[in-house]
């Protein structure tokens, strides 16, 4: 309080530096993607027509809705969106079914064990994502571990095609994102008031009934947060469908990558990104609402 001017400056610097950085490298890039999505592809460097032009003392703005029309007309694109949403949804459900009991068991473990179990769950997500997806290639391939084992046991005579199918993509997504489901679930389950569950069973409720009527409704915040943490990145996933998926697991992240790097059609890639973002707005808002609420409740 000694030097008000200095304090004032310090506060503005603390706010100003990250603010400018994010404005420059987070907000502005999205504005550019939006702008480019209305542009036309061209054989040039960079490969698109300018959107703004200043000719004869007049500012010309070219808005080309063609990219968005293309997304509507070409069934490949909306099939890719549908496939992505469907696969992300099923994989999220898979993570929930496996992750919920795991989070529950951790939350009920002795306090000293909880930290260790959480570390065990989180550790794989910190080791390389790419490597963990790659590990499944060796397990699922036609002469891979599972097929070899099944053949050796005499269960099958011909290898089952697992790699390059949707099944492999589901395994990959569940495997890679499971820890992100467990963490928020654990955070809500650990705060759950156990006396409510005891009361329910004292009053004669079966354990399944107690789960549906008490445990699940009370942990809904964690269920939503975990599901969104899996669903959102899974929709835009590129690495997993590229390495584990087949030609029919055409997810939108992979299509965007191909449009950008292989076809070099930057405007179409941009409009693909804009539509993907529009589809994800509801899940992203849901997640943000949960996050800000849980941050406020901590204070």
């Amino acid at each position, binding site marked *: 309080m000694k030097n008000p001017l200095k304090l004032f400056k310090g506060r503005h610097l603390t*706010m100003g530096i*990250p603010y400018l950085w994010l404005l420059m490298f987070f907000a502005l890039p999205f504005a550019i993607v939006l702008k480019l999505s209305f542009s036309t592809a061209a054989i040039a460097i960079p490969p698109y027509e300018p959107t703004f032009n200043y000719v004869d003392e007049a500012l010309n703005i070219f808005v080309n809705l063609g990219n968005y029309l293309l997304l509507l007309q070409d069934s490949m694109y909306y099939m890719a969106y549908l496939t992505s949403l469907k696969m992300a949804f099923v994989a999220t459900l898979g993570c929930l079914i496996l992750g919920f009991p795991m989070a529950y068991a951790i939350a009920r473990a002795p306090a000293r064990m909880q930290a260790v179990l959480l570390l065990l769950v989180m550790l794989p997500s910190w080791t390389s994502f790419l490597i963990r997806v790659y590990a499944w290639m060796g397990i699922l391939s036609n002469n891979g571990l599972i097929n070899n084992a099944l053949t050796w046991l005499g269960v099958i005579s011909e290898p089952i095609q697992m790699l390059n199918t949707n099944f492999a993509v589901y395994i990959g997504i569940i495997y890679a994102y499971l820890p992100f489901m467990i963490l928020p679930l654990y955070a809500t389950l650990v705060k759950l008031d156990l006396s409510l569950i005891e009361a329910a069973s004292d009053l004669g409720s079966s354990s399944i009934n107690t789960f549906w009527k008490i445990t699940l409704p009370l942990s809904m915040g964690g269920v939503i947060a975990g599901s969104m943490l899996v669903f959102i990145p899974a929709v835009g996933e*590129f690495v997993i469908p590229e390495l584990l998926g087949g030609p029919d697991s055409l997810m939108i992240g992979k299509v965007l990558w191909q449009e950008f790097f292989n076809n070099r059609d930057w405007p179409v890639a941009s409009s693909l990104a804009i539509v993907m973002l529009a589809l994800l707005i509801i899940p992203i808002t849901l997640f*943000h609402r949960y996050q800000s609420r849980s941050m406020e409740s901590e204070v």
Partner: protein
Amino acid sequence: MKNLSFSKVMLWVGLIFLYAPMLILVIYSFNDSKLVTVWGGFSPKWYGELFQDQQILNAVWTSLRIAFYSSTMAVIIGTMAAFVMTRFRRSWAKLTLSNMITAPLVMPEVITGLSLLLLFVQMSETFGWPTERGMFTVWIAHSTFCAAYVAVVVSSRLREVDLSIEEAAMDLGATRLKTFFLITVPMIAPSLIAGWLLSFSLSLDDLVIASFTSGPGSTTLPMVVFSSVRLGVSPKINALATIIILAVSLVAFLSWYLARRAEKKAKAAME
């Protein structure tokens, strides 16, 4: 009781599911056979071949440098943002900042990568800079998304710090800056280190954003791994994967340990 045992079984099933693929990878990295799926006896020869691959070694060096610079910048930006999020009065500017900083946590990577690349292209069109993409542009991209994680880690620690100690220092005549470096930084140091280590491993691991923002001279390790993995499973990559798993687990374990020790210290101080 029945419910409890079911969840315990699922916990073990889940943990086996998480660790078995990595364990198999580690075992097969010592496979003498050139065929990845046929066991041909124990041999560390693929490790030897790995250390003679100049392309991989260059990529490792590039990745390490980028990760070092990115995590340092991410800690600076993320800590400042965390201060704004926890200490500043509710305002329009604070709200937009906290929304912007946490957004990269959930943004699909292809969108972040694409948008940053388009920014760099637009910048070089407009001001002629950066003339070409390389380590510098990857550094900017990685600093931005890692700052999000640092902000979350540091802000949760800042909420627990006792403000009265800082107030006492300032009452005794320390300037705001001096108070920050002599009082606040030591108190939040473990979370700063944990945030730095987390950023370091995130940056080392990133493939998608780096692919969009890097140029000819800045191929990172995940990019090299990805292009060779696309061709199929190879024993040399198994060896590389084993080293990556060990190194990153070590870093991750260290950051977790530091964060936990800090928590314990804080609890002990409060009692």
